[in-house]
């Protein structure tokens, strides 16, 4: 006979950090979620009664995640909201009265058609027969809703699809400007800018800031992300912008294993090119169409920041990147550089940004003008450009640190670096979403937070409304979901197994018709323990 050893209690291998809500990445039902820290990485975990347990990496540097949380500015009420609170976040978008922030940036997707068919496209756009193209009236209705909500909106971005192929894009830009929008940006792949110099000249008269997809220099990067080697077109587009005086922000979609090694090369190129004022790095959003990925190994803002420090150690270190306080601070980090020739100075080395943007510690603020200036720089509405707000705010911020008159022409030498991780159906955290300040403006006059739009089912709903064609529920192309995924007519994924689970699509053939893309909250089940 042997003695049974006493049973030992075992410690968990993670720290439980937050309780929040998310959605099932398959059926999009709202479910409870928890955020845990393990091995200095932050994860979101959730369980759908129908589709099982899911976990995804939110932030690959827990210390950075924690220190970001101090940069959390109290939100601002918009002048009006567009919806009522009925089912709770994220089903009432938007904006509903419970949303914690006004809209710093409004996006209008003017079409779904595109002159490319990229393997990676969160908007699921391309050469498609059943898309939509907004009318002047529809764009005006959206702009009017935005103006009613914001008064004088900071930034409107025209996107798509590919907005430059919309025949009325110049009129849309003009209309936004006429309605008092401070800054208009145009989100483009650059193909038309490369080949249509007349169009570039006409654009230059309106002076929008160009946001141009720019993912790297390896042909492999172009093929895998855009489906074509576009190096020549990108260079030509940038040169045309420089010639006609259009400022450009390079927007790099970064995917694990594809182009993370090109982070440094992209910014070194950008700093040298006369048209480029900014680089925005975005870990690929696993919404819409994308390559297969592992949610536990995805790229996060922390990976981009560490990557930049590794690849440009002579320019950057971790503390140069400061979280943006207007949205939820883990979503976006920004730095500014002063550049002259080979000399580069990150602005956070000149001024203690913490002393102004750490809203948790700082209850006394001796110099509000400095804080105000820094808030505008570290904002989702910060747009690079000499004639725009950024130049003035840099001057103002630097005045605050006692550089009177000193850096008057500073805007000419400034360069913005943005790192933005958009949420997807795996990573959606309602806590962060509630303070989102980047909104999709819909023709029915709603302002829907961008990550809700891409993750929860709003994109499918709106596209279906606008195009009249059935749009299935889009599901992330995650490795673990492969057995149940079907390819949609747009190249994205939906789930099979009969497909609609009461609300979803049935996959590629477009036959079944979902009743609703936004399923009910399964956590607020409307009963108490003993009922």
């Amino acid at each position, binding site marked *: 006979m042997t003695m049974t050893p006493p049973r030992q209690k075992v410690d968990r291998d993670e720290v439980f950090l937050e309780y929040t809500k998310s959605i099932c990445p398959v059926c999009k039902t709202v479910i409870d979620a928890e955020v845990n820290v393990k091995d200095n990485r932050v994860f979101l975990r959730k369980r759908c009664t129908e589709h099982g347990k899911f976990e995804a990496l939110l932030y690959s540097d827990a210390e950075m995640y924690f220190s970001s949380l101090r940069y959390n500015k109290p939100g601002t009420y918009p002048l009006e909201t567009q919806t009522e609170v009925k089912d709770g976040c994220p089903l009432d978008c938007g904006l509903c009265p419970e949303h914690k922030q006004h809209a710093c940036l409004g996006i209008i997707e003017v079409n779904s058609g595109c002159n490319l068919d990229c393997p990676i496209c969160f908007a699921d756009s391309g050469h498609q027969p059943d898309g939509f193209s907004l009318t002047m009236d529809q764009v005006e209705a959206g702009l009017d809703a935005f103006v009613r909500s914001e008064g004088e909106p900071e930034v409107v971005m025209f996107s798509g699809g590919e907005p430059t192929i919309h025949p009325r894009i110049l009129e849309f830009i003009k209309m936004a400007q006429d309605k008092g929008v401070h800054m208009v940006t145009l989100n483009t792949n650059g193909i038309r800018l490369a080949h249509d110099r007349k169009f570039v000249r006409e654009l230059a008269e309106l002076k929008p800031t160009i946001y141009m997809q720019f993912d790297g220099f390896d042909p492999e990067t172009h093929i895998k992300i855009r489906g074509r080697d576009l190096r020549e077109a990108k260079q030509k587009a940038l040169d045309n912008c420089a010639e006609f005086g259009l400022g450009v922000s390079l927007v790099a979609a970064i995917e694990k294993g594809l182009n993370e090694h090109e982070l440094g090369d992209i910014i070194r190129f950008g700093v040298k090119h006369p048209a480029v004022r900014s680089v925005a790095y975005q870990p690929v959003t696993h919404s819409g169409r994308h390559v297969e990925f592992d949610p536990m190994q995805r790229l996060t803002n922390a990976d981009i920041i560490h990557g930049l420090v590794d690849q440009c150690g002579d320019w950057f270190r971790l503390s140069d990147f400061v979280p943006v306080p207007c949205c939820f601070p883990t979503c976006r980090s920004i730095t500014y550089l*002063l550049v*002259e020739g080979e*000399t580069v*100075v*990150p602005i956070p*080395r*000149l*001024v*203690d940004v*913490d*002393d102004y943007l750490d809203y948790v*510690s*700082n*209850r*006394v603020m*001796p110099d509000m003008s400095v804080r105000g200036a820094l808030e505008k720089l570290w904002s989702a509405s910060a747009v690079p450009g000499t004639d725009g707000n950024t130049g003035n705010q840099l001057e103002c911020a630097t005045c605050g*640190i*006692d*550089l*009177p*008159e*000193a*850096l*008057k*022409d*500073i805007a000419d*030498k400034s360069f913005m670096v943005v790192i933005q991780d958009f949420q997807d159906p795996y990573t959606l955290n309602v806590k962060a979403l509630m303070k989102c300040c980047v909104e999709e403006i819909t023709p029915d006059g709603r302002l829907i937070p961008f990550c809700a739009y891409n993750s929860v089912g709003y994109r499918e709903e709106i596209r279906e409304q606008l195009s009249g064609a059935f749009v299935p529920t889009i599901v992330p192309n995650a490795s673990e979901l492969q057995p149940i995924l079907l390819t949609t007519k747009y190249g994205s994924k939906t789930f099979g197994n009969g497909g609609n689970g009461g609300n979803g699509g049935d996959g590629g053939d477009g036959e079944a018709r979902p009743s609703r893309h936004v399923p009910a909250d399964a956590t607020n089940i409307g009963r108490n323990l003993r009922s």
Partner: protein
Amino acid sequence: MTEGPAILAVENPEELKVCCSTAYQRDAVALILGESYHPGGLDLTRRLARSIDLRTGQRVLDVASGPGATAFLLAAEFGVEVDGVDLGDQQVAAANAKAAANGLAERVRFHVGDAERLPLPDESVDAVVCECAFCTFPDKPTAASEMARVLRPGGRIGITDVALDPDRLHEELKTLAGWVACLADARPVEQYVDLLADAGLKVTLREAHDAALARMIEQIDARLVAFQMAKVPALDGVDFGTARQRTALAARAVRDGIAGYTLLVAEKA
């Protein structure tokens, strides 16, 4: 001395005490350092306040109060009344105006005065703070005894300051005595402790914050680069190459443990 360390060349080191009040120096120093900058920023000010255990309603003296950032922070976050003393009459006037503008005039007052002849009665305050300034006082024993005089028995004084070992200081920094004002007459920590002890102030806490000094030197260097880029007229004639060589030397002194930044708390018996 009014605010923080000066870093541009002082023609005559004997004039150290008044250098910051000359117009050129004020502009140049403010340009390079910022109005209220001291190593560690507001975070170290908070730590200092907690180290001397400030309580709501107490009366605090800030020696070398500059534009008043520390005084305002102490009043707003720790609920104390603050008297700031500074050599520069314009600084004092501006700080008083700011107190009035922020509705703090009742609780925060600034006075023109010399650290070696404090314009306050004996035993009139519960605590004294002095940030990055003690090292610049030419007559340190007198300054220490003045702080002790105005402090009530059992009261605490909190100092943050540059500490260094002059014997090991790099020749180039040493001979340029006035170049970095704080380095010019900074002492090893033990000497500060002895100076305070001689004035009847017993040191109960000493804490190294060398990283704060390293950060400040780096900030100065970054600003020099920015000014050079911007071709600031106020800095015409400044030899940026030499200036940056010296910041590099200063940074090395911190790395090698020759210069550091220290937080001291002392108690009056």
